[in-house]
């Protein structure tokens, strides 16, 4: 597609050629697409300075020359909704492209799966237990619990609550924040949850994880060992 050419003032009698229309008009408007994939299909070679609006995420983005970047996020602090996913099956995988973001923030709510639901989040397809070094603290009514796991064999994921328990009803909420998702070094992950326990007590839990690997983030997996997810919404945000 033609690159933006800046500004031109047409005068009476000028002939508007196809090239001029592409350079001065088509490539310098806010282009509207249904989704990022629709944009990729329509524009094989985006040019620096192009601007687009994505209807599925309500995001306005510009092309930096190497990537589509959210406008308004600025150099820091802006949040862009990257995806919305409904949990299903015993595991739901969500792809993530963290390029341009310093943090990936994930909110998860309304999760149900069997009568004693649990929820774990794995990074990429990593099941190496020693890569997940976690410390957790929580409370259920007046009962407090704490501990540390240097990887949990077989689980190998982030546990937002005590042993991943997220309550048996759908009023639960969990969040995960993955810092430095593009780094080829360790990542810091913080997870927390609020839920109604099996004893019908309000409960909360917080986990901090030193995720030790040299791979950049490319996906997350939400897993349960109790039946299958029957409900649950996951929102993934990119944060500058």
């Amino acid at each position, binding site marked *: 597609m033609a690159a933006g050419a800046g500004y031109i003032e047409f005068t009476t009698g000028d002939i508007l050629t196809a090239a001029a229309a592409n350079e001065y008009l088509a490539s310098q408007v806010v282009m509207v697409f249904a989704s990022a*994939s629709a944009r990729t299909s329509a524009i094989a070679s985006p040019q620096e300075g192009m601007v687009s609006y994505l209807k599925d995420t309500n995001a306005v983005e510009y092309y930096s020359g190497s990537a589509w970047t959210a406008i308004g996020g600025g150099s820091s602090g802006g949040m862009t909704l990257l*995806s919305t*996913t409904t949990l*299903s*099956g015993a*595991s739901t995988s969500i792809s993530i492209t963290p390029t341009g973001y310093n943090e990936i923030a994930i909110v998860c709510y309304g999760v149900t799966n069997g009568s004693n639901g649990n929820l774990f989040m794995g990074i990429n397809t990593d099941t190496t237990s020693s890569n997940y070094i976690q410390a957790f603290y929580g409370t259920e009514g*007046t009962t407090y619990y704490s501990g540390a796991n240097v990887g949990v064999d077989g*689980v190998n994921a982030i546990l937002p609550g005590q*042993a991943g328990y997220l309550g048996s009803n759908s009023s639960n909420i969990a969040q995960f924040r993955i810092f430095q998702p593009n780094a080829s070094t360790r990542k810091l992950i913080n997870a927390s949850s609020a839920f109604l326990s099996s004893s019908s007590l309000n409960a909360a839990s917080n986990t901090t994880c030193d995720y030790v690997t040299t791979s950049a983030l490319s996906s997350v997996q939400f897993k349960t060992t109790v039946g299958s997810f029957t409900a649950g919404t996951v929102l993934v945000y990119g944060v500058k």
Partner: protein
Amino acid sequence: MTKPMIRIHDVEADSIVDREMTDAEYEAHLASAAAVDELATNAALRAEHKAGLLERLGITAEEAELLLS
């Protein structure tokens, strides 16, 4: 036997695929379930031991928390 299902949401391609677990995935899933059961059992045993200790000491959990703070 039907294995549990997996959902794969490829955000870039805007596609969602639901499929049955592979044998390897199912094996990992069973191992996770066993690990979680062990976590829950250990937690229950710790809670039972703690309750017994508090009873022998004749103090409540709140009083123990205060002493340890």
